[in-house]
């Protein structure tokens, strides 16, 4: 059986620096920060107060009609991103009803807002305070079901909960589904809302930055959380060509690995294994990777491990070090959405030959001895881009995208 080639033909992004790919990309290139004081809950008793919330998100203004059932913020962000991606791909949902259309989505905490709301009610009013409608929003599969219902799709559908690499897991699995001829179209990506639990958790782990996120900077102090959703339309090359679609990039393959070491501390060796697997599965031979959209969280530990792994592998490959930048410097860490939004950035970077910057960069760190495109975007020919995603549990996934020719 001949394996299908898989291309990306639609991008949908909902982020703190822009809704829709135009705004998002314009602001990413200019290095705009989406970080602001938290407004969705009171942080006066937390040690830190900033995050990348999306302040102006209205699902209704994107989808234009009322969804069938009520749902939580993660589903809202996801559905918004799917609609934007389908519009961008110039695909009408009606055209999809008769086919198998995969809906593969990654998330870290999913509809955690339902849990938080229920906990608050429970603490106030006990069992009687628990609202069945809110409770039923919690299971993560709701997020894909809402998309399937909205567009009357028949699946298959999957929810990957591999924490902060989940977007890449979903895109990778979607790529496999098309490549193996099990579907012609897959909507794949990731989403996560900003949440009290994650904000409190990273504060308690002492890995939350007081003000700004400074990936690869010597004085980096940790992550800032963001929120958002990124969805991509993947389809077979034949189908894309037949309908004269604009092709952003071809998916060459993806790598997976597991640190098998610690729940929260990233290992350089696991990152190395993952990038190596990605490069190997993508069969790029001695072609160069021109740009790496880094995981780059801004924690001392992650950025050091990631830099080490990149240097080690590319020294071995002998193809020279790619440019490496972190969009988390602008968006904060959007968790399950992070690698999906990263994949969207790679597509746009490939199309424009521009690498988005790592903002807030002040002091070089000898332990992160990479060209992280400090503060200002750079024009650079990008044929192949690597998109990194690493997660709690050492669940790693990296994606390789190439300009379509």
């Amino acid at each position, binding site marked *: 059986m001949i394996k299908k080639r898989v291309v990306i033909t639609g991008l949908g992004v909902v982020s703190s620096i822009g809704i829709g790919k135009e705004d998002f990309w314009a602001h990413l290139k200019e290095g705009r920060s989406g970080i602001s004081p938290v407004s969705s809950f009171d942080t006066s008793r937390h040690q830190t107060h900033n995050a990348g919330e999306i302040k102006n998100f209205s699902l209704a203004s994107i989808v234009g009609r009322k969804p069938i059932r009520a749902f939580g913020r993660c589903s809202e962000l996801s559905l918004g991103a799917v609609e934007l991606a389908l519009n961008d791909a110039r695909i009408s949902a009606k055209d999809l009803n008769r086919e198998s259309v995969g809906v593969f989505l990654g998330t870290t*905490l999913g509809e955690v807002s339902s849990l938080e709301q229920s906990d608050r009610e429970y603490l106030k009013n006990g*069992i009687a305070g628990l609202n069945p409608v809110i*409770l039923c929003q919690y299971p993560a599969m709701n997020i894909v079901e809402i998309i399937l219902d909205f567009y009357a799709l028949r699946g*298959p559908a*999957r929810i990957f909960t591999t924490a902060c690499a989940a977007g890449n897991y979903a895109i990778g*699995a979607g790529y496999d589904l098309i490549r193996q001829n099990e579907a012609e179209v897959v909507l794949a990506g990731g989403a996560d809302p900003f949440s009290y639990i994650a904000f409190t958790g990273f504060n308690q782990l002492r890995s939350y930055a007081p003000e700004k996120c400074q990936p690869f900077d010597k004085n980096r102090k940790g992550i800032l959380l963001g929120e958002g959703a990124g969805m991509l339309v993947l389809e077979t090359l034949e189908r894309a060509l037949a309908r004269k679609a604009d092709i952003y990039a071809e998916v060459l393959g993806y790598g997976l690995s597991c640190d098998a070491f610690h729940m929260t501390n990233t290992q350089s060796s696991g990152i190395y294994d993952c990038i190596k697997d990605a490069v190997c599965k993508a069969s790029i031979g001695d072609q160069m990777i021109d740009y790496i959209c880094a995981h780059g969280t801004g924690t001392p530990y992650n950025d050091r491990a990631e830099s080490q792994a990149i240097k080690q592998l590319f020294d071995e490959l002998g193809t020279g070090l790619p440019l490496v930048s972190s969009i988390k410097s602008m968006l904060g860490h959007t968790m399950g959405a992070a690698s999906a939004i990263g994949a969207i950035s790679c597509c746009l970077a490939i199309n424009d030959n521009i690498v988005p910057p790592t903002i807030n960069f002040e002091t070089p760190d000898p332990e992160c001895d990479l060209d992280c495109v400090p503060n200002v975007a750079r024009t650079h020919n990008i044929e192949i881009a690597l998109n990194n995603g690493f997660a709690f549990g050492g669940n790693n996934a990296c994606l390789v995208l190439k300009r379509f020719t």
Partner: protein
Amino acid sequence: MQNKRVVITGIGVVSSIGIGKDAFWQSLQDGKSGIKPVTLFDVSNLSVREAGEISDFNGKDHFSSKSLIHSDRAGQLLLTAAQSALNDARYVISEKNTYESGVSIGATFSALSCSSQFDREALSDEPRFANPALFPNTVMNAAASRISIHFKIKGMNTTISTGICAGLDAIDYAVKAIRYRGKKMIVAGGVEDLSEALFLGFYRAGLLSGITNGKVVSCPFDSKRDGIALSEGAGVVILEDMESAQKRGAKIYGEILAIASAYAPLPRNQRRSMSDGMIDAMGGTLRLAGIQPKDIDYIFANANGSIEGDAEEEKAIRAVFSNEKKMPLIGSIKAIIGESLSAGGVLSLIAGAGAIENNFSPARINCQNVGSGQPPSDFQNSKSGGKSIQTALVNAFCFSGLSTSAIIKRHSA
């Protein structure tokens, strides 16, 4: 190129009816129910006080305290099942094979307990007093990651959270990792732990059996069914590509022929017909497996006592097998173990492996008044009648319409 064949070479079970595959299979054969009074948390103020709790489980019976540090109940149930499966397969992870090995787990509610505890601590005290050790368990891939960390499995680690379908979906992911990504062995399965947050959620959502009369009975397909008996458990299988399994002389329990998933979207202003998704999943699985409905000897149904769900499944099965003169045997082990959600599909698959291995079919309990209309005898049959099971269909269907089916077959070279 022919698809690689994927076989089961090891089984690990931690369930409300027994720890270890033999105890599990024996209880299924004997019809020994796992539904019992809940002791893990206080249920005295609720009308439902029973569930499929694993009362005799203590992680420390299986692992050192150091291995279990910061691991929650779901992590411990799963790690125990994974160890037992790896031992059963006599598979040892080494530096040499670790990159061709992986982990793929279905888990949907396993993070609920720690998430809720962490959240409530932060809300009721001060955020800065919330226990940071709980936080890593608020991610849904925590339990699966414990397997990789403990056994040093470095090839990949995935968690899928599609509810009742999650276990079979994780097995599908594992099969694909072997077929398409060159993996040789995947530790695949599902887990769910019984927690107060989960129990209260299902209770308040009105999904549990016994809410009105306090009597918890798990009676799938029975006309008196009134909801599910919630339970916990972990089921893990060792999946290998057949050639490498044979090369190392592994015992083979059965072959995974195919897995397929589908969904029945909720139409606007209409009632959803969930059975459409189930029909597509079962039909798709048969098609992928390249076999006919008549080749199925036994259906391990999803039926869990849900009033609508069981009726839809019965309808779907009748549609898929409508041209058959004789229906396959049909049973749901959830009558015995209850609904263990993400673990449920895997435990049904393991029941299938046991039925093939030991030539038994699970006892039928709690099922007297069958079906909606005139029930066919096959829905009532409780004995396999000595006929050995060669091929079984395993169903996993979510309340909301996601459907996954799998086919397991007796191994033949």
